[in-house]
């Protein structure tokens, strides 16, 4: 095996990333993790990273060492329960300058649900600021140590979660909904690989059977099939796919089926010419003369001959299917619930990645598609060279 070809190793790595990458994600990639269009952490500058802390009966006070610009939002959610009858407690926020805000008061009752968001008008009212001011800015006036604590009656159960959405995030930032681009990128590998390989396999099976039938049977069937191939090759496929997807629906399996049905032509041609040349060869004629059935000849002799060529056409055909899937997704003709690289580029184009200057939404999926396609192209060429060593003699094709 030509393992020295870089593409085989790269394909192996991509497979591993496709299988284990999405499994390694602990969070649902569809959930927002930071503010929309947050840049990657390594270029985010003094934008705050996402922060969260938990207040519990055992730990009723949390200190936050703040070294960044003020966040755009702050939320405190959770439940608290008290055992005593006459509760008198409050949630305090202390800034480095010594200012103390009373965020919430718990009086009388013994169970409290807390749901504070710095963007809520009622919360802004309770702090005594106008609804048009940013409460988070007011709560973070400077750098230093902030203390959030439950004072008064100690709670007996429940917990509060303090969350600050970050202004920068992870390896590749966030998209227009605040989702982690790196997780989306990892999940997107699966769609590209699945659609590319499944559609090409389907197309190859179709192309193999049609090509063998056409080349081996010859005559009227042959000319009819070849005419159909000519016609299908001379019509642009993308508008047909667009119309069919627009009418039949946008599911992943429908897409694979449609792509397979419209990309068998090249394989059929290659297999046909192979079958034609083999049909005239002496050993096939001998086989026929000793009474071998056409099916036996096709299955036992033509198919093994065609296999390496077929493997190469599969590998060379995958980029076409991947690009077609990405193109359709980019045009918005894919299932919006399925994360794919084309879909990511569609959303980047449609939801203002440009005005946000968010290159991290465009480069990773685009380069991902290109690299997968390059890998399959190179693998195809390597298999071609194995099947036909003459290609090696003249140097690279």
């Amino acid at each position, binding site marked *: 095996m030509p393992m020295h070809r870089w593409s085989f190793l790269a394909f192996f790595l991509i497979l591993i990333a496709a299988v284990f990458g999405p499994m390694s994600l602990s969070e649902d990639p569809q959930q927002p993790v930071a503010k929309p269009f947050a840049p990657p952490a390594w270029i985010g500058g003094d934008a705050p990273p996402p922060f969260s802390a938990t207040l519990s009966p055992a730990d009723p006070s949390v200190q936050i060492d703040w070294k960044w610009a003020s966040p755009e939002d702050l939320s405190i959610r959770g439940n608290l329960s008290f055992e005593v009858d006459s509760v008198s407690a409050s949630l305090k926020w202390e800034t480095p300058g010594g200012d103390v805000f009373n965020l919430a008061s718990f009086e009388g009752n013994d169970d409290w649900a807390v749901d504070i968001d710095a963007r809520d008008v009622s919360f802004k009212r309770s702090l005594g600021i106008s609804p048009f001011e940013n409460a988070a800015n007011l709560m973070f006036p400077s750098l230093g140590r902030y203390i959030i604590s439950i004072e008064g009656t100690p709670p007996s159960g429940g917990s509060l979660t303090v969350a600050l959405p970050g202004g920068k995030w992870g390896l590749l930032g966030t998209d227009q909904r605040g989702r982690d681009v790196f997780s989306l990128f990892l999940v997107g590998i699966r769609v590209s690989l699945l659609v590319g390989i499944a559609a090409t396999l389907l197309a190859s099976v179709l192309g193999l059977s049609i090509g063998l039938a056409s080349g081996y049977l010859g005559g009227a069937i042959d000319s009819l099939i070849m005419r159909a191939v000519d016609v299908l090759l001379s019509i642009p496929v*993308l508008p047909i796919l*667009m119309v*069919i997807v627009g009418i039949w629906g946008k599911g992943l399996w429908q897409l694979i089926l449609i792509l397979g049905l419209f990309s068998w032509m090249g394989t059929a041609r290659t297999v046909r010419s192979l079958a034609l040349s083999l049909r005239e060869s002496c050993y096939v004629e001998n086989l026929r003369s000793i009474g071998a059935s056409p099916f036996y000849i096709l299955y036992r002799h033509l198919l093994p001959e065609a296999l390496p060529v077929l493997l190469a056409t599969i590998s060379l055909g995958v980029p076409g299917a991947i690009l077609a899937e990405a*193109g359709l997704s980019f045009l918005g003709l894919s299932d919006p619930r399925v994360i794919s690289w084309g879909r990511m580029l569609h959303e980047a184009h449609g939801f203002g990645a*440009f005005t946000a*200057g968010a290159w991290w939404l465009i480069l990773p*999926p*685009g380069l991902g598609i290109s690299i997968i*396609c390059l890998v399959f192209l190179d693998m195809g060429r390597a298999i071609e060279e194995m099947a036909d060593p003459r290609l090696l003699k003249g140097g690279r094709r």
Partner: protein
Amino acid sequence: MRGYWVRRAAGAVAVLLLVIAANFFLFRVMPGDVVSSIVDPRFSPEAKERMRELFGLDLPLHSQFFIYVRRMLTFDFGISFLSQRPVWDELRSRIPNTAALLGSALLLSSIIGTWLGVKAAQRRGGLIEKVALVSGSVSFSFPSFFVQLVLLLLFAYTFPLFPLRGSVSIPVPQGTLPQVLDYLWHLALPAGSLVLLGFGSWAIYVRNLMVKTLGEDFVLLARAKGLSEERVLWNHAFRSALPPVLTIFLLALPGIVSGAIITETVFSLHGVGKFLLDSILGHDYPAAGAAFYILALLTITSNLAADAAYSIADPRIRVGHRAER
């Protein structure tokens, strides 16, 4: 010669009829009754029946099909569901834009690709051959919209040299020359990106053809006669490789039409491809069918044009002794 043309024209008509038939049936297999998708469900049954009569849906399928073929051939595409205007009025203003995009992209990428391919074949292993091989890999593996998005981000957003979107400036400049320049300014990035993605595969095909041709005896003979290298290359070798080069044009055409649809979407051009997408997304079936038909028509016409060029370039067809390819 005549036999060749009759066959080619018959083939084109057959493809056209096939496209029309596909169009007719595709838009009729969609789920649900046609009428129910366009009228209010609260209409009375009598009103619905009248609607069916109005749209000719009460006729048998084959007469519907003949009416459909006649209307397609006379460019009578009906009324758009979305804009409530005749589809042909919507399409008419878009066809020149798509034709300009396709034409300039095809012309430029074929010229650049052919030159690069011939030069690469002339000097194997040289810098030009490396450029051709790399650009070929790029054009086979880089998605067009990705390259175009990067170009937009670089040359329209970060460095605003080119417009972000559209086919003309708003307001449209006064005078013919400023209008033409404005149009070309808007066309530069879309057509340029298509050329950037298209010339590589072209160069590789031409190079492979020329490598084969340059190894033939008549090239050796031309060299032995003492002809200049340029003359051997272009007048002898390339001239004999020209007919297969033109078949590359036929092979590249569908891909470029598909690329034009995506390009028009990325750059929000006022073209047929963008119209097709908007119609499909808006479930505007008459408009989608018409746009699909126009794109197929553009492809078939360019196919015929390439056939004409082929017949001129190939003496076997021009002289007409052996009409077989």
